[in-house]
């Protein structure tokens, strides 16, 4: 039995952060119903990467919204709003990521929702919280990365700020949202009362930086400084930490005893026996290592290093990764199918429960695909 079986989630969220949380809840067993405006549906349906579509909706939408149902309703239409309120009365959880003020206007803020369902768990995602000068700013991932200091942690010192190449603020916030909602379920199990859960992209992208920010706070306000050699991987870590080019591709070296690693590679690092130099002179040291590593193939080096128990690994691209037998052996892919029978291959939940992976064949719904079913189950007698 999946842990959230029997729970009904109404998802008013759009785009990535909220819906990625809904997906996790769905995979953990909840019944997640997307509430979407009729015909066009959620905005992400038309947001595509490389113009890839599965049906009327983008592959991107399908990736984020599999294993969910869709109920089409116009929140600005009073008749539809009555239906939505009937649904809320029977739901366990509702989530939205409207900008502050929108749900108040519709009449579905937390207080009003509690009057409809005193046990509702009401989750909201904002960009920057509800107060302060940033509350109305667009909560967009790259902007959050830029404002939060995150773009000064990757890449090299002489480069411009280098953002993370995927929507890390959205995704971490989605993860925190799931944690908050699950904790709220535990609270409700004790008190029998509704719970308000609030997360923001800004707090989430700051939480990811908790180590770097704590260093900054306790190190006299010193800013993180990136290494300046290609393949620099962490502003706070000493040599050899980083990526290196070899004769035929790249490998990574994690932390370890530099002198020992130097010996394994056949590099003389006697000038750097003093441990403090491993950080201070990391660019110099990494340049020496980089020159040496260029002389053999990645497999060659990995064999030499692994024999000594040194932490290293190859750098794959998606093709090389996809060719690894473990991808299928660990069932890292799953195939999902929509109501027309169209299929696509995607990833699955990263959580295993009672020794089992959590998969589901159900692809993302079409707009309003489940209206009739939901009417029959929730609305006809309510």
């Amino acid at each position, binding site marked *: 039995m999946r842990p959230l079986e029997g729970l009904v989630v109404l998802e008013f969220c759009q785009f990535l952060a909220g819906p990625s949380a809904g997906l996790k809840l769905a995979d953990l067993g909840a019944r997640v119903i997307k509430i979407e405006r009729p015909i066009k549906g959620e905005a992400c349906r038309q947001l595509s990467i490389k113009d890839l579509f599965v049906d009327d909706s983008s592959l991107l939408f399908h990736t984020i919204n599999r294993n969910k149902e869709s109920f089409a309703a116009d929140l600005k239409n009073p008749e539809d709003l009555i239906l939505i309120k009937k649904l809320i009365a029977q739901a366990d959880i509702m989530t939205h990521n409207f900008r502050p003020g929108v749900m108040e206007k519709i009449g579905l803020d937390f207080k009003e929702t509690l009057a409809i369902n005193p046990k509702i768990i009401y989750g909201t995602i904002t960009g920057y919280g509800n107060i302060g000068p940033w509350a109305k700013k667009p909560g967009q991932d*790259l902007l959050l990365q830029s404002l939060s200091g995150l773009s000064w942690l*990757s890449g090299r010192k002489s480069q411009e*700020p*280098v953002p993370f190449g995927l929507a890390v603020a959205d995704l971490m916030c989605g993860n925190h949202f799931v944690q908050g909602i699950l*904790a709220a379920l*535990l609270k409700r199990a004790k008190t029998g009362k509704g719970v308000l859960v609030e997360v923001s992209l800004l707090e989430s992208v700051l939480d990811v930086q908790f180590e770097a920010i704590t260093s900054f706070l306790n190190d006299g306000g010193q800013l993180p400084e990136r290494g300046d050699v290609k393949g620099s991987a962490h502003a706070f870590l000493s040599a050899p930490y980083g990526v290196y080019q070899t004769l035929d591709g790249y490998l990574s070296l*994690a932390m370890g005893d530099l002198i020992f690693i130097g010996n394994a590679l056949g590099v003389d690092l006697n000038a750097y026996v003093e441990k403090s130099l491993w950080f201070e002179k990391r660019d110099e040291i990494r340049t020496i290592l980089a020159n040496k590593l260029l002389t053999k193939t990645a497999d060659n080096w990995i064999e030499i290093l692994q024999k000594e128990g040194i*932490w290293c690994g190859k750098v794959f691209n998606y093709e090389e*990764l996809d060719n690894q037998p473990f991808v299928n052996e660990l069932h890292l892919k799953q195939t999902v199918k929509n109501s027309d029978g169209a299929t696509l291959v995607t990833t699955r939940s990263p959580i295993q*429960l009672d020794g089992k992976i959590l998969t589901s064949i159900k692809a993302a719904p079409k707009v309003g695909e489940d209206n009739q079913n939901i009417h029959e189950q929730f609305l006809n007698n309510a």
Partner: protein
Amino acid sequence: MKPLEDYLIVDFSQFLSGPSASLRLADLGARVIKIEKPGTGDICRTLYTSDLIMNGESSVFHTINRNKESFAIDFKQPEELEKLKKLLVKADVVMHNFRPGVMERIGLSYEAVKIINPTVVYASISGFGNHPDLKDLPGQDLLLQSLTALTWLSGNQEDGPVPMGLSIVDMLAGAHLAQGILAALYRKATHNIGASVQVSMLESAFDFQFETITTYFNDGGELPVRTKTNNAHAYLGAPYGIYKTKNGFLALAMGSIPVLTSLLKCDALLAFPENKFALRDEIKNILALHLQTKDTDFWLNILEPADIWCAGVLNYQGLFAQEGFKVLEFTQKVAMLDGYTYETTRCPIKIDGEYFTSSKGSPKLGQDNEKIIKEFIAL
């Protein structure tokens, strides 16, 4: 009332992934007891980054392990193991991030713990799960970023692999483990059954890339291509990126090129009336040259009123000076038992209007032994 009040978590994990999960659970109200090896403790205590030592131990350890207790016990000794089992009997959650096989050898596998505590939630993080060829490889963040191709998404086209500059896979695995534990605790609360929860860094890194990996699976196997300059997302068109200005940097998210052309008075962009993905390098190039000519605020003052998604690029100093940051009260001061205080961040989740702060700093190794023995073991 904190949601996890009255829950007891016994945590054998070290470094970042597991301890970041138990930190979250501690902030949500659980009592977390770290089980540590006498003498050395969690290896993270001596894992220094940029050589920052606080009160004799690493800054990283203090960041991840505040709001927890420490019980130093050599559970490889049979009589000590028996003592420890008395604590495990009372635990709601037992968690670890040893490599597969280690807890089995100690005699604390899920099956073994379930015998003395049938409704326990037993949670573990590994690098690669139980895969026979992989299970003995180090589950280390940079190696997982490298293995799962995450390094080809950030930076510019000619930069080679560019890792994300913090332990993102550790943190994701920790976040997913916390989710699994919370879901299992909910099932335990409603159905009174235990669970085993497993997360691997490999699966967490896949999940993080679910959009780009799914794209790869469905676009005929095309590899992501980063833009030549100003890359912020391999799969997004211009202007998406960070640009140098006369006095700093400006981030531009999605936006219409013709609209930007007229707002920025950038005539060279008139040649690109349609925002063709294939021409994103050329468009970015022109934008980069143009944006260098004026200060960041000059551009923001034009773009923000027009609802263009843009922002200045801040470092921690700049961020901390902003009112939008200050109103969050995101930092907190914590104190260790010996009186040493330090500043750190707080839990990012707010429930019923309450921020989950705690003034309790990280524990010295074994500082809670006496109390724990008295409470759980001495009987």
